[in-house]
Every structure is written in structure tokens, then in C-alpha cells.
């Protein structure tokens, strides 16, 4: 076997599609080929709002996970956090695309991601908080994945078949995200005195935001069941859920952290509004 032969076989075009590569690297229109019809029983405005909220949550979460790149505590975590980030990015793309089909604007995914300002974003505040340390990031991922998973399980039977299919795909992904985060919360809670302190602090900060999550989608029973199980295994104390939300990201009322996050995300796209990428 000559090297040239090996090289040629590597460099030639491949017709096998991008199936073996990460989801989302191989297509430009996430819903290409899928019927754009909306069943009569579905309220288009409500459907669009739901898609936009869930897409914004996913995009902001993916952006925070991307910030871990080259900063993770171990190489295995580099790979895992990127996997999870790519899953959320894929969810955002599908949901923005569906939103553009049903809100009457016919906008593409990038119009939503790159050309809206912070007060137009409907993401929850928990998602936009800075990454903090690894304990905070794992506490947030656990709570966020458990909450979103409960919502997606419900949406998997939604009257809109496209949203139902997106949700069914997401359920598989977030079952893994929840598991990954839960394992780390247990390791850190049980590990050393230092990791226990940090894990408890991370959990306390995250649970302060549960009120906002439950106001947006009341998955209280499912989320608290997960948190009770994980904190017990980790030897951590589950704080009380605050009775009132600390803010309403769903109404465009964000912390000071979202605008700089978006400024970075949108910087190149907005510098070249006429460009194609």
C-alpha cells in the first residue's frame, strides 16, 4: 500500500454524508425536507414562543459550555462538555428553524441567534450566569438538564409533530447530560473536604434560581426528586427552594451577564452583516 494511495483515499470526496460526525456539522437548514405544515389544532403564536424560549435556553447553555473548551479539569471532560454543548447547539438550531417556519417571519436560525439583542432573548437567567468553577457548572447542568428533560418528555407528545420529534431527540440527549452532571455532583460532594465545600456552594447558588425555572415550566416534582436522590448520594444538603423567582428571563428581564455573552457570540456576524459563511 503506497502512501499516495492512502492520502488519495483520505482526501477524495466522501458521499457517505456526515452521519458519523457531530450532529449539525453537515447541514445548513436544520429542518431541510421536513414539512413546514402546522396542524390546525396548534396555536402558531404559542408554538413559536415555546420554540424560541427553548432555543434561547439551548444556545446560551451551549455558549457557556463552549467557554470550558481548553479550560476543563481533564481531557475526558473536554470531550464530554463539548459533546453536551454540541447537543444543545443542535437543539437550538432545530428549534430556531421551527420558530422561523411558524412565526410568519421565515427567518433562518442565524437571524435569531445573531441579530437579536439581549432584551429580545427569552432564555432563563440560570443559563446566562458565568461558568464559575467546575462545581457550579455541574450543579447548573444537573438542574437545567433535569428541568428541561421533564419539559421535553411532555413535549414529545405535542400536537406539532416537528416540535414533538425535536423533543424526543432531546430526551435521549438530556438523559445523558443529567447522568453526567449527577455523577460529578456525587464525586465532588463525596470527594475531598475542598470539593465538598465547593459543590455545596455551587448547589446553593443554583437552587436559588429554581423559582424562575418552575415559574417558566413547573417540573417541581421531577426536578426535586432528582436533586434529593443526588444530594443524598453526594452527602450534600438540598437547600429550600425560594418561594419567588429572582427574575424572569422569559420576559426579557436578564442579568448583566447576557449582553456581554451575546456581544461575543454575535461579534463577527454583526461586523459582516452582508457576508455568507
Amino acid at each position, binding site marked *: 500500500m503506497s502512501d499516495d494511495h492512502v492520502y488519495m483515499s483520505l482526501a477524495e470526496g466522501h458521499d457517505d454524508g456526515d452521519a458519523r460526525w457531530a450532529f449539525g456539522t453537515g447541514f445548513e437548514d436544520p429542518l431541510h425536507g421536513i414539512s413546514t405544515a402546522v396542524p390546525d389544532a396548534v396555536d402558531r403564536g404559542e408554538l413559536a414562543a415555546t420554540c424560541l424560549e427553548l432555543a434561547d435556553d439551548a444556545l446560551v447553555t451551549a455558549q457557556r459550555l463552549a467557554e470550558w473548551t481548553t479550560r476543563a*479539569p481533564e481531557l475526558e471532560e473536554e470531550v464530554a462538555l*463539548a459533546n453536551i454543548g454540541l447537543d444543545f447547539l443542535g437543539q437550538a438550531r432545530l428549534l*430556531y428553524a421551527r420558530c422561523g417556519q411558524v412565526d410568519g417571519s421565515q427567518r433562518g436560525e442565524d437571524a435569531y441567534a445573531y441579530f437579536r439583542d439581549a432584551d429580545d432573548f427569552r432564555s432563563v437567567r440560570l443559563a446566562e450566569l458565568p461558568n464559575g468553577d467546575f462545581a457550579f457548572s455541574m450543579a447548573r447542568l444537573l438542574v437545567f438538564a433535569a428541568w428541561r428533560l421533564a419539559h421535553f418528555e411532555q413535549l414529545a407528545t405535542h400536537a406539532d409533530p416537528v416540535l414533538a420529534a425535536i423533543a424526543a431527540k432531546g430526551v435521549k440527549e438530556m438523559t445523558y447530560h443529567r447522568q453526567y452532571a449527577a455523577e460529578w455532583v456525587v464525586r465532588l460532594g463525596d470527594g475531598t473536604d475542598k*470539593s465538598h465545600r465547593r459543590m455545596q456552594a455551587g448547589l446553593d447558588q443554583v437552587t436559588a434560581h429554581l423559582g424562575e425555572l418552575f415559574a417558566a415550566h413547573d417540573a417541581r416534582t421531577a426536578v426535586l426528586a432528582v436533586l434529593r436522590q443526588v444530594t443524598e448520594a453526594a452527602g450534600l444538603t438540598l437547600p429550600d427552594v425560594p418561594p419567588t423567582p429572582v427574575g424572569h428571563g422569559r420576559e426579557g428581564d436578564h442579568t448583566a451577564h447576557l449582553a456581554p455573552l451575546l456581544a461575543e457570540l454575535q461579534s463577527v456576524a454583526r461586523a*459582516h452583516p452582508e457576508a*455568507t459563511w
Partner: protein
Amino acid sequence: MTAQQADSSAAHDAPPALQEHFEATIARDQRIEPRDWMPEGYRKTLIRQVAQHAHSEIIGMQPEGEWITRAPSLRRKAILFAKVQDEAGHGLYLYSAAETLGADRADLTERLIEGRQKYSSIFNYPTLSFADVGVIGWFVDGAAICNQVPLCRSSYGPYARAMVRICKEESFHQRQGYELLMTMMRGTDAQREMVQDAVNRWWWPSLMMFGPPDDASPNSRQSMAWKIKRHSNDELRQRFVDMTVPQAEKLGVTLPDPDLTWNEERGHHDFGTPDWDELMRVIKGDGPCNSQRIQRRRTAHEEGAWVREAAVAHAAKQAARAEKGTAA
């Protein structure tokens, strides 16, 4: 001690039958496996090469990784995120291959952040625009493929097998990089300028990726005799230039070398001489981003120490609890 000296001293002590078996395996183009006897020099040379390669994958995540959060479309963001993730995966395989030779990942990481082991000089250059992401895919992954495809036939089994998978992924990355540049060249004037500027900045450093010229590459001869390496630095550099020139024409960019011409007689392109003094400066630590790259890796490693310690402590507690449970 050079690799050659190490080999001759080890060969001196080794039972002749083992040495002969090793030589015969290499001569028959068969693979050396972790369980096989091998000369100390061969082992050390391989650990050094595989570790440098692993370090290059991990440090190589940084220049492109800086653009994941700024990628100008969601599709490009997914592509770049997945690519940088692949590099972490490559680093993992390669550290594992080094561990089959008796090295330890934690120790190799210490050597990297203390500057005792090198990584590819190319990653010490900055990424100044999003076009750099495409040019790195095209040039740097292209050069890596030229370097690495022959390593799929390297005499050391675990390294050769890791390289097969890595080369497939690198070739995918190269096509993605080139496709980004094609799209940008069809875009606005500003995008075309970004691409040409990135090509100008990355061309010469990419040629330097093949290492110093053959007459100044002390370790190459022994590595070729051992079939760890299959082609000389200059042969691979020529192959890269010949491969890239028609791609540049198709793309519509100019490679920044006035001496670049087709030589009918040789059947190859003639090209100018890279600034070898610059390569030496970058290798010795004086490149534009050397300290920044190592600092980032050091910070991630040090700030992650408590997490790794917690995982070890938890595993030990689990094991103790399981043992107690069994005893009870």
C-alpha cells in the same frame, strides 16, 4: 544522550536473540507491539514523538478554540466545536499510545507545562480573524495529514493504529476548512481580504511544520531506520507544496512566495526557503504565543487539580465502602 547513543548502549546490553528478533520484525515491515522487546532508544524516541504529537493536539485546541464562541453562523459554530473536540480526542488516543510504552499521562502533562517537552511550533502563532479557522484547516491539517499518513505504517502498532483514525478525522477537518474558505471567497470583498491575509500569515509557518531541512535534522535518520518515520522532512514538505498549489489556484488566493514555480524537469514545484531562524526561535519558546499557550494549559491543569483529586478520593471511598459491604 541522543537516540542513536541510547540505542547502541541498549543494544550492547540486550540478549542478542531479542535484538535480532526486533531487527527482523522491522526489516519484514511488521509491527512492534507493547509486549515485544524493543531497544531503549526506540522506546524513548517513540515516547518523545508520540508525547509531542499528543501535546500538539491539546495545545492545538487553543488557537481555533478561541473562535468557537464567536463563530459567525450556527453551522460554523457546530463544525468548529466538533473539530476542537476531535483534537481533544486525538490527544487522548495519543497519550494512551504513549502509556503503552510505559509513559504516564500526568507526567507527560507536567513535562509539557514545564517546557521540557515540545509541541508543534505552528500553534504558537495567533488566530487574528475567522478566516484563520479555514486556513488552519486547509494548511495545518493538510500538512498534518502529509506528516501523519505515512505514520499509519509506523513500526509501532498502537501509534500506527491511532494514526489511522486520526488521519481520517484530519482529512475531514481539512475539507471543512477548505469549504469555509471557498464560501468566504464567494462572499464580500472584506471576506476575500480576510482569506488572503490569513493565507499570507500561515503559509510559511505551515511549511515549517515539517521540521528543519534534512541536513539539519539530527534525529530523523535513526527514526527512518527504525521505520518510526517513513519520509524525510524535505520530501514531506515538497509533497505538501505540490498538493497545495492547485488548491490555492482553485480558491483564487496567492501563496506568498515569489519563488514558487513549477519545475518541469523535477516534476515538482520549486519554492523559497522558509526562515529557519524564525522556526528555531519559535521552537525555543520565542514565538508570538508560546507563553500564552503554555500558561493556558498550566492554568487549566492547576485549576482542575481539586476536581481530579476529588474524583480519586471518591473512587477510593467507594472501593472502601464496597469492601466493607462485602466483609459485613
